């Protein structure tokens, strides 16, 4: 169990880091939409629309690190499988 939790912690950290990098390493807050600007040819006003897109930010990285820390911390409550002692071997 200890191993599983530790591996899960590493996986969460890696997955979050890779997702953050792949989506453009946004150093701001997480966004669920991005601005798309279009110029109106007649009025020359820059129209603003929002396109749905998940853009993880530093809060996403922080949250993932917290989850990984919790998993890692929980793993400390589990002991490693006991190796048979010398006496047990003799028995």
């Amino acid at each position: 169990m200890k191993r599983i939790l530790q591996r899960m912690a590493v996986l969460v950290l890696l997955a979050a880091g890779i997702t953050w990098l792949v989506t453009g390493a946004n150093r701001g807050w997480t966004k669920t939409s991005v601005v798309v600007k279009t110029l109106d040819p007649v009025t020359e006003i820059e129209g603003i629309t929002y396109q749905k897109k998940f853009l993880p930010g530093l809060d996403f990285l922080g949250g993932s690190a917290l989850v990984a820390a919790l998993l890692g911390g929980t793993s400390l409550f589990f002991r490693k499988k006991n190796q048979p002692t010398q006496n047990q071997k003799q028995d």
Partner: protein
Amino acid sequence: MKLHPLIALSCLATAVHAAPETFDFKDPKGVNNAVFKLTAPLETIEGSASGISGTVSFDPENPAATTGKIVVAGKSLTVPNPMQREHMHSAKWLDVAKYPEITFAAESLANVKTETNVTTADVTGIFTLHGVSKKITAPIKLTYLADKLSAERPNLKGDLLVIRASFVINREDFNIQKGQFLDKVANTIDLSLSIAGAAIIK
């Protein structure tokens, strides 16, 4: 003394042309927008509003006489972060349920300068936000586009009026979290408006 009918007609035509036009800013294309910017830790918060309506009376022969009211629907204010958007609309911040409209009622124009179809001026009016009204003055640019409505909306004839304005407000002046979270959400908010209204000729 009788007035020649042609002279009378020409006088009437001049009078009709000189009359101020009323421009409606309800925008079926959804291009009109108001942008707000404020500094915050991590990054500058930038959002916009699209729910814009209102009317402006504008006379191309006398731009200084421009008056009108622009209304922004509070619910249409948005930012790309959903949690920030929720907080912004909540009772603790803008309370859009209680104060659904942000308005600016233009009362007068000063320092009016007109070159061809573009007028720049300083507009003074009443800005209402979060239930608080304050008189403010801001630079404004009015661009009159005669007979251009059909290019925007086929089957309709008329004129367009493009308004651009930028100004700065302090959220504390409008009782928005007065004295609170100044380290997290700046007191100073930059606002800019880019809108086009139509005067339909029937």
